[in-house]
């Protein structure tokens, strides 16, 4: 997990164990809260298959990141993986995607500043 300003960059590689994916989900939530990151970029260009288990984890990461006032962008999905996911019936609604990390960072930059309650409260104080 790499930090670039307000953004956490996560690179997934190879064949993930279920337990590794679950651990990542927990670690990310904690890191967002600890670091105050407003964006998460998950690079899946090195991932050869996404089954319903990993698909569900990715959707949940996007959901929980949203609840923690940050946004997730999934980057670099392989064409064969996208084709398979659609046929599987998993289109990951609610998950933002980009074709490259640069585009994802730009996307997150445009949508910052967030309407974080913590931030607003600090301004009023």
């Amino acid at each position, binding site marked *: 997990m790499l930090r670039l300003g307000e953004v956490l960059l996560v690179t997934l590689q190879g064949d993930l164990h279920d337990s590794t994916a679950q651990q990542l989900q927990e670690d990310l939530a904690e890191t967002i809260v600890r670091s105050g990151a407003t964006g998460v970029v998950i690079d899946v260009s090195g991932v050869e*298959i996404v089954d319903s288990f990993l*698909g569900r984890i990715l959707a949940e990461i996007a959901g929980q990141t949203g609840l923690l006032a940050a946004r997730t962008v999934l980057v670099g999905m392989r064409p064969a993986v996208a084709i398979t996911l659609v046929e599987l019936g998993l289109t990951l609604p609610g998950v933002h995607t980009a074709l490259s990390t640069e585009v994802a960072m730009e996307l997150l930059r445009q949508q910052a500043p967030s309407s974080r309650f913590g931030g607003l409260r600090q301004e009023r104080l």
Partner: protein
Amino acid sequence: MHTAAGSQARLPIRSDMDLVWVRQHVRQAAAQLGFGLVDQTKLVTAASELARNTLVYGGGGTMETEPLVEGTTHGLRLTFSDDGPGIPDLEQALSDGFTSGDGLGMGLGGARRLVHEFGIESAPGSGTTVRVTSWVGRPPRPREES
């Protein structure tokens, strides 16, 4: 139709580590038989769904791989077996959205869409066997419903 020589194998499915071996083995076998990248990915994904079902609902079991030849066409058959509690209502288990454990309920129905042939045998108390086959270069089967 007869079984092609070699690379028949039987793998245990006892842990999520075994799921990784299953995926790697199916990927390698499919690549050797000449499956294209998209078809490899579909078959590996189907295998992952079915192996996870074997692990989670069947309490563990095995996957057997069998390379096939029909005329000049090569294929790969995967058989997932467990001695678990079995599935009381197959129709319900095959419908999307149905799940009795972890996952999105896409395991069986989703896997069926990713392969050319799909067969399942199960009854309460007598375990579950799922057999899927895909053929190199054959177009996907038509959609059942739109």
